[in-house]
């Protein structure tokens, strides 16, 4: 029974690790999108500042 438990625990741990790894990459992707949005806002702000000047 111990061997059986180890085999199934191993399989589910591997799947869980893969899903966590996907989540980690998703978080990185979201950070890159946030950085893009910030850069976009800064560009827009400097453009409107230049227009106002």
């Amino acid at each position, binding site marked *: *029974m111990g*061997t*059986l438990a*180890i*085999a*199934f625990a*191993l*399989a589910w741990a*591997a*799947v869980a690790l*893969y*899903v966590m790894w*996907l989540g980690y*990459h*998703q978080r990185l*992707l*979201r950070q*890159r*999108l946030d*950085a*893009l*949005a910030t*850069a*976009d806002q800064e*560009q827009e702000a400097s453009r409107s500042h230049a227009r106002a000047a």
Partner: protein
Amino acid sequence: MNRCAPATFGWNSAASAGVALLLAACGWLIFVFAPREITMGDVQRIVYLHVAVAWCALAGCVAMGLAGAAYLVRRTPGWDQWSQSAGELGWLCSTLTLATGSLWAHDAWSTWWTWEPRLTATLVLWIVFAGYFLVRGSIEEPRRRARTSAVLAILALADVPLVVMATRWFRGIHPITPDMDWRMRLVLLASVAGFSALFVLLAAMRKRQLDQAEQVAALERRAGIVT
């Protein structure tokens, strides 16, 4: 630009729930419904997991090769992304195939490993997956990386018939297709179906993620952001 973000994992909640239900049913079938094997006892239930992940490893290799061939024909990044996601999961499944097989072998053959044809061919499959990702990781230029990976993925297909036919072509100790009680056969089929569904779900999630990463990289290049 934010159109990539909110839908990230939202589209597949129904599919995820369906796969979770299917796997829960598989768990019940494996531990409750399947009869206890006389000679090996409960350890034999590893077979339901081992065969399912081995099937997914082979399916992953075939999908990786076919998607690679499709990339070479169509030259669209989507096929390269499918090839990569199928390869990642195929590698994970081939690792689990070796691990669960080793656990089963320890009880059945009193050894963790033997250079038996089926086992050796499966180890070669694992090494082929590892090589594919080593090569992928070493090439910076996306189009060259996709092209080289596609060629490697097609070459990797050569190991699939070796793994499948190893028990028939060469003399070894790995079981071929043992006679099974109908309940055991049913549980085996359900387990293969359950793990295949999980494989497809995870591959689709990863493919979508790779696609989004490519879109973000394109936006970053346009905005002049270097990552």
